[in-house]
């Protein structure tokens, strides 16, 4: 005799007899994912945390973590955070202006699709080839360097070099700007023409619209996008490595030196540096999630 619970259960097939068989198969479906994430994402991260507090002999030590605040690692973190903030802010702003121009109804449709396509390619094009692309452009004998020389502006005589902090900023912007275009495009598409019309019907100027309507709506998305850019350039290793052969003090390059190259170095110092990177990213992500919660308020129904 069917009880009330079983009758209800019939509506939800996973609670019936045959459903129980499906349930176990279902767990088989998601199990490989959890297994893989556990073995190759979670476990390495947790192990690094323990490794940061251990000597090679397995004894507990706080030495490696406390040395994060000493040189040369302090400079490594400061330089890494600095380039990330600069390129995230600059790339973010240029990306927003570009995306807004290309996505506005006034722009020819072809521009819109060309920009999103190219942003997809450029955002995915990075690392070593990007470094060489810029050596061909702004290196000592690069195309733009030669052209500027020919009009009398000798970049390298004026102290500029591509293989410096400033040079790396210029290179990083190559993937930061398109990244921002891709990230911010949905938010800009979500700005409705009615809001602008309503504002101007109420007598608002363009500036007032941006100050009181458009700006506040876009701001959380813009800041959230910038934090993603921050994370991207904070993690970047390949471009800086190829451009400077590792001779610039960024945390990822310092980790690489400790783990791969130098036999006299202590890999556990590298684990501590890696944990420090996770900590910086965690702070950035916390800010991102807080902003994203705010931003999603406006996205409803858009």
């Amino acid at each position, binding site marked *: 005799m069917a009880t009330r619970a079983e009758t209800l259960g019939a509506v939800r097939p996973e609670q019936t007899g045959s459903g129980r068989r499906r349930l176990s198969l279902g767990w088989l479906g998601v199990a490989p994912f959890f297994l893989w994430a556990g073995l190759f994402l979670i476990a390495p991260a947790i192990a690094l945390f323990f490794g940061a507090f251990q000597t090679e002999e397995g004894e507990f030590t706080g030495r490696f973590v406390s040395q994060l605040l000493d040189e040369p690692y302090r400079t490594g973190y400061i330089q890494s955070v600095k380039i990330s903030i600069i390129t995230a802010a600059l790339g973010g702003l240029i990306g927003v202006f570009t995306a807004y121009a290309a996505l506005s109804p006034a722009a020819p449709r072809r521009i819109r699709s060309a920009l999103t396509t190219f942003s997809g390619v450029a955002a995915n094009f990075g690392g070593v080839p990007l470094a060489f692309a810029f050596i061909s452009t702004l290196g000592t004998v690069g*195309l733009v360097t030669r052209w500027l020389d020919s009009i009398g502006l000798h970049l390298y005589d004026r102290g500029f070099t591509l293989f410096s902090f400033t040079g790396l900023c210029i290179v990083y912007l190559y993937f930061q700007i398109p990244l921002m275009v891709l990230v911010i495009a949905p938010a800009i598409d979500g700005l409705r023409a009615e809001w602008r019309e309503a504002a101007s019907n109420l007598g608002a100027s363009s500036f007032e619209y941006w100050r009181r309507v458009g700006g506040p709506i876009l701001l959380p998305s813009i800041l959230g996008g910038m934090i993603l850019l921050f994370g991207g350039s904070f993690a970047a290793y390949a471009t800086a490595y190829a451009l400077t052969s590792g001779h610039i003090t960024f945390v990822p390059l310092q980790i690489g030196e400790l783990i791969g190259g130098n036999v006299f170095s202590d890999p556990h110092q590298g684990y501590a540096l890696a944990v420090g990177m996770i900590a910086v990213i965690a702070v950035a992500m916390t800010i991102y999630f807080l902003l994203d919660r705010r931003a999603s308020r406006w996205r409803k129904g858009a």
Partner: protein
Amino acid sequence: MTRRLGLSGWFWLGLTTLYFLVPLAATAEFSLKEVDGYGFSSYRFILDDPQFRDTLWQSFQLSLLTVAISLAIFVPAVYWVNLRYPGIRRVVEFLSVLPFVVPPIVLIVGILYIYKASWLPEWVLGNPRYLVPGYVVLSFPFMYRSLDAAFRSIDVHTLTEAAQSLGAGWTTTLGRVILPNIRAGALSGAFLTLALVMGEFTMANIALFNTFPVYINYVGQTQSNPAAALTIISFGITWFAMIGILLLGRRPGRGAIQVGGAR
């Protein structure tokens, strides 16, 4: 309401276009440069280098393996999350997006720390396929998002029930009913993963494996013109992958280009 793009709009568009195109043009020029005049000698040099073919093939094999494993993990996982376990969606989503913010250098250092010589045999440690588990993790965000978008755009419940009421088992349902419907999303995730692995330098360099990007770096430290040629080839590979996704985008269950890439 103005319907024309203002001066500042054109300014930003022009600036970004220049910023995108000039380095490419410069690289192309550099790759064609010879002692006197222009020619294809850099490309010939690269194509004649057995290392080029070996490393390109190596990276291609690694990317195929990564794509295969990633699809095998995510197609069932996303399917069941959409069909039966919406409750764990947030966990799956969180874990899938996590590699997006965990720097690859941190990931490979952690992997090298756990999976090391003290308990793993030499044939595991010395094989470039050692990189694949980490590459699959790097592909998580791309694969998850592409597939989840595809699964959301179809009615998983109705399709599954229809297939099963006609007597299909789970393998038939997945292989012959669900899979053809999410093919565009799966391919889009596959192309993104392909581009990712073909360009991945950090993990391979730290773990000391000679993949295609490691080879590009090696050439670049000594010969700049062939390096420019390799850069153009590498850009072509990224371009090919993105165009693949865009062509898929015209079909239902379309894939969208996503952010990411090897830096």
